[in-house]
């Protein structure tokens, strides 16, 4: 049994010591052979393009209101129809792309940075530091994230930057847990011990030697985290707490059109499709990345 464990750790060490470039190339090859991941990548590329060049793709000014043409059903003039204020829904959805992507990416950047640092410190230092940090994370996890985000929004006030902070803060525990778990699993490896023996400082060991080796797990989580952040943004928007007008945020569009569910259902269909497609794309890519990084799950 002991022998067996030795063998496993020896295999893990050789895997970890493999050259990063060849590992990356292998990962990429595995990723692009996955149809779902490729579809996800293509959708994300299109969304990024729309987010950057949206201004030139919009047929109308997304904020131009003409009450004479409110609630028009989809037509050749207005592909997705017009909303309660007579604004072109297609133009507003294009305008909303960069908000969703920006909020999603920025929120993940916040939770990823703070979560990684907290998880790394907890996992590496162990003992009391670990106990204090992780118990605090458990407490945050015991409050539903949407309620916590709403409370943060109530405390911080409304707006796009506040939404980013609120959504970023509530996801910290997830990253902290993952990073801590990964660190615990590689901490005892020979290369970490070797780095310690030659007198490297703790911070250097964690960020130069350990984090690069657990980066793959973090990347997978972050990709899937973007989809959660996009969903949370739309949820806050729907409740009227997120990004405020004149910004055309998809969740906010749904929240404001909710009263017209029976009289003008088209106002509620398209923003939801836009959210679903965006979330789907990051989920597909995240799943693909996980399969590419973990050959065991690929088999299944």
């Amino acid at each position: 049994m002991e022998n067996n464990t030795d063998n496993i750790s020896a295999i893990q060490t050789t895997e970890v010591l493999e050259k990063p470039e060849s590992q990356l190339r292998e990962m990429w090859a595995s990723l692009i052979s996955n149809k779902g991941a490729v579809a996800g990548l293509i959708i994300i590329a299109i969304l990024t393009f729309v987010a950057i060049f949206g201004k030139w793709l919009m047929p109308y000014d997304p904020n131009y209101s003409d009450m004479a043409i409110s609630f028009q059903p989809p037509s050749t003039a207005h592909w997705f129809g017009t909303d309660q204020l007579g604004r072109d829904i297609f133009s507003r959805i294009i305008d909303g792309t960069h908000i969703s992507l920006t909020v999603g990416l920025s929120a993940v950047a916040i939770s990823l940075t703070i979560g990684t640092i907290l998880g790394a410190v907890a996992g590496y230092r162990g003992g009391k530091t670990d106990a204090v940090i992780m118990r605090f994370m458990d407490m945050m996890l015991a409050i539903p994230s949407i309620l916590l985000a709403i409370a943060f929004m109530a405390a911080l006030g409304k707006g796009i930057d506040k939404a980013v902070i609120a959504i970023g803060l509530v996801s910290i525990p997830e990253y902290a847990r993952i990073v801590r778990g990964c660190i615990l699993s590689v901490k005892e490896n020979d290369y970490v011990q070797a780095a310690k023996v030659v007198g490297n400082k703790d911070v250097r060991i964690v960020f130069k030697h350990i984090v690069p080796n657990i980066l793959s797990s973090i990347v997978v989580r972050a990709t899937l985290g973007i989809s959660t952040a996009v969903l949370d943004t739309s949820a806050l928007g729907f409740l009227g707490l997120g990004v405020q007008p004149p910004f055309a945020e998809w969740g906010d569009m749904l929240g404001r059109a909710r009263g017209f569910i029976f009289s003008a259902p088209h106002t509620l269909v398209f923003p939801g499709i836009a959210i679903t497609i965006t979330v789907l794309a990051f989920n597909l890519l995240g799943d693909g990345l996980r399969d590419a990084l973990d050959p065991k799950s690929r088999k299944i």
Partner: protein
Amino acid sequence: MLKYIIKRLLMLIPVLIGVSIIVFVIMRVFSPDPAPIVLGQHATVEMANAWREVNGLNAPLHIQYFNFIKGVITGDLGHSYYTKTPVLEEIFARFPATIELAVSSILFASLFGIIIGAISAVKKNSVFDSAGMVTALIGVSMPIFWLGIILIIIFSGTLHILPSGGRADPLLQPATVTGFFLIDSLLTGNLQSFADTLVHLILPSCALGMYSMAIIARMTRSSMLETLEQDYIRTARAKGVTEGRVIRRHALRNALIPIVTVIGLQFGSLLGGAVLTETVFSWPGIGAYTVNCILKSDFPVVQGVVMLVAITFVIINLIVDVIYAFLDPRIKYSKKEA
């Protein structure tokens, strides 16, 4: 086992203290002052100050926290700033509605999730497998509130076969015994009301349960695929056990352990999702109500609800761990803990 359960319940105390501090700090330190919201915009500074004094908001923060904790221990969570009703009364008037919705959603999610996941695993790479997994992928990608809206547009607005919101027809509402309409209507023998409550539960449960169903289906599939490759499955087949029995008794039962974890975790997250579903379906539960209270800085209510939700969440996790022991006789908490 009993020792383990007691130990876990004792661990609830530090978690609750932590949760109370987090909520307290967010609400009392950072949230807007409730005085002008409660008294209206014409209130003078003196009036606002007097109101804060009466509600203990002028005291130093640690005294405020101490008073709050003293209230929690004695079971007095204070009164809502707006309705003046005791917080516990406010909460228990709405909590059954949310629990009824969450339980029916998790039943829907577990039932369909396990069926779809198990069939996908058994018929791996078939049309059913692909369709099931695409459905699951879309299920995790759709915003809960939008799915609710679409279901209302289709089943209420277009087909007119299901109600668009509310817990029951006001005329058919059962007499309150427990607050759970399904139980109350059965206790009072009111079958018409039972049917009406069920019909009202269908759309919100589907909307709230879809995400969990997708997660459970994916978990069941991968867990089943793993178990189906095990030696004991081959042994069972070699012994001539019928395929149906191999799948139900040997594969699914062993695959259930990780699935139960996921179901437990999902039940906890449903309490959060309820906030959105309740808003869409005008469901008179605790979720939509809490959002309102947060926005109006109704401190006592928000603190009470969050504590209650945290307790529920921790207890659900405990129940999941206990169910493990029944599913997997290898896990013996009492021995491990001794």
